[in-house]
């Protein structure tokens, strides 16, 4: 009876998969920044995934998953026609979108997927959008075309220099801030990347927003597994977030807590 049927699957790279899944109710209520909790199989774990896109006509949502553990590997192994056992959402607070001027959107690895709806919405709100896509190597850059469609400029940063400039995302951010007035930075990617983007923009006093992907169980505020310290106070990523002021997040604690089950 499951209605969460996979209607399209695309391999972005060996370990990164895009799934377009039937979830009409979520498709119509989701906004940029929202996430869902997904479960695969009867003994499946509940894991949070950010929504990359939605198609109202088809009643679908798009998820981008990187196989890093047991549960994500199971999801990535599903094929078109298969069903996800459970999807619940949209959860979390939607991104606050307004016209602020110039917005730099930094995406690291699969973080580009949840960044895409924010890029779109920021552009539609009338902002100048400069997107910086960063990855270890060129094959791991995803959604390049889609990002370019809604950005005034796209900068690529790779660790090995195989695409764009060689270097970390922070170098790209720094370069843009030095050449023009930046009003907002949005960074989504691995925790350590967001930490260093936050440190960089703090130096220049540019407001910065990050979307955190912590361990969760229910995703509705019930368990507290996702708690992070923001501005000295404990917050729940699932209901208070997932987006927070990057300059106030205790990234070291967050990175430590991500290793709870490693």
């Amino acid at each position, binding site marked *: 009876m499951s209605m969460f049927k996979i209607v399209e699957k695309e391999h972005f790279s060996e370990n990164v998969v895009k799934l377009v899944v039937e979830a009409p109710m979520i498709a119509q*209520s989701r906004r940029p920044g929202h996430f869902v909790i997904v479960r695969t199989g009867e003994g499946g774990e509940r894991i949070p995934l950010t929504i990359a896109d939605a198609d109202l006509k088809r009643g679908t949502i798009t998820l981008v998953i990187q196989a890093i553990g047991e549960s994500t590997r199971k999801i990535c192994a599903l094929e078109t026609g298969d069903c996800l056992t459970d999807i619940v*959402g949209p959860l979390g607070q939607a991104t606050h979108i307004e016209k602020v001027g110039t917005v730099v959107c930094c995406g690291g690895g699969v973080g580009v997927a949840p960044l895409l709806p924010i890029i779109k919405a920021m552009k539609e709100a009338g902002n100048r959008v400069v997107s910086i896509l960063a990855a270890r190597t060129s094959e791991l850059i995803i959604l390049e075309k889609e990002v370019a469609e809604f950005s005034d400029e796209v900068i690529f940063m790779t660790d090995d220099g195989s695409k764009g400039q060689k270097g970390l995302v922070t170098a790209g951010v720094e370069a843009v801030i030095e050449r023009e007035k930046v009003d907002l930075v949005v960074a989504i990617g691995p925790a350590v990347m967001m930490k260093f983007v936050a440190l960089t923009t703090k130096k220049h006093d540019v407001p910065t927003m990050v979307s955190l992907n912590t361990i969760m*169980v229910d995703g509705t*505020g*019930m368990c507290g597994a996702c708690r992070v310290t923001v501005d000295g106070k404990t917050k*729940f990523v699932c*209901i208070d977030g997932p987006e927070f002021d990057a300059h106030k997040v205790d990234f070291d604690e967050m990175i430590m*807590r991500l*290793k709870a089950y490693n």
Partner: protein
Amino acid sequence: MNTDNNRDAKWREELRSALSAKERTSIPRAVIPQLDPKFRVHSNHEVNQGLSQAQAVLEATRCLDCPDPQCIQGCPVSIAIPTFIKNIERGEILTAAKVLKQTSALPAVCGRVCPQEKQCESRCIYNKMKKQPVAIGYLERFAADFERENIKANNIELRPSAVEKNGMNIAVVGSGPAGLSFAGDMIKKGYNVTVYEALHEIGGVLKYGIPEFRLPNVVVEAEIDGLRAEGVNFVKDCVIGKTISYDQLHQLGYDGIFVASGAGLPRFMGIPGENFIGIMSANEYLTRINLMGAGRPGEDTPVLKGNRVAVIGGGNTAMDSVRTALRQGSKTAMIVYRRSLEEMPARVEEVHHAQEEGVEFMTLCNPIEYLADEKGRVRAMKVQRMELGEPDASGRRSPVPIEGAIEEIEVDLVIVSVGVSPNPLIPNAIPELEISRRGTIVVNEESMRSSIYDIYAGGDIVRGGATVILAMGDGRRAAAAMDKELMKQEK
């Protein structure tokens, strides 16, 4: 099947005159068979095994069938207690079960988890005679279990009750005890009822919170199947206020909404080190194990294990957590509670079971800081020793720190069970809804109606953190009031 509550019915008069009060009161209260503590701490089997039929009939014989039964007053859902007990005495167990179902959607659950010693049994006439009260809870459980086993053994097909449908649609938010109780009453009144659940399983706290050894899932499942057979529609994976908005519920044609979304938000103490790895809420710990099956073969969800586990708090959830820790293989499991054993809010039976199983009780102790190893994993807690001072607002003697009495205690897993706050999802999603300072939905105490005309609410989202039976009582009252209101509008 005659479920008549008339005390003057012929069979009841005959039953009463069959034995004298003296003969009845001379029977000792039944002792419920329990699994050996040494065996049960290594298993998930239910601790209380339930009365045999002979035991139940004998226990039912103790009940004096009082002319003015006070036990009913002590029951939040006003079960016709003497009627069901006398049906057990005369051997009409299935009728007894039907009597229970008239007022309680979940008798097999209530018979297990209700604090009867504070409710029905506390009002029993036997207390006045300085004797142990009639074991109403054990009898409730017996009748409900008997019915369930009878249905299973005889492959009886459950059918909806023959009520004429009134064509009106009701949405229920949350499938815990308040929501199920409300749904059960409304379906019997002829409404179309849909229950929305955020999780992937129906049952709310009965599934994610209360452990198998106290409330087996098959018992909960059977009660839910009963409601399903009556025609209640269940939708899982759906968060009202997120997946479907309040306005959309109207577009879907709902005439009334009952919010029973529970006490979703675990409280922490706000002390240094509380976010170290290995410190989690009781909600997280119990959800991982009860709902997600962590530690069982074929289940992907992990849970941290500890050799020395401290559970902070003294309520039923704390007892559930500490006893779960023992079953997860911890060598030492302790309760850390800031008052004394006497003030502990947990049921006496749960404390007793925990003691039998070897749980250590560190009372008059309050954690003030956690310490971790270089990887951020908790390794010790600092506790402040307390002594009891003057009574506080709750009437309990309040704990006061003993100056300088701070100890460091080695622990590798800490479960924080110091209460929950109401889940903010619904209050956030419906800004017009009147919310108390504590974050609970404000309702009229009689009707359970909120500040919005078609929204009623009950259970922990209104109470902030109470019991299964109080939540069920809310569901019943809300159903009665909503029905009255909708019928009035209809005319």
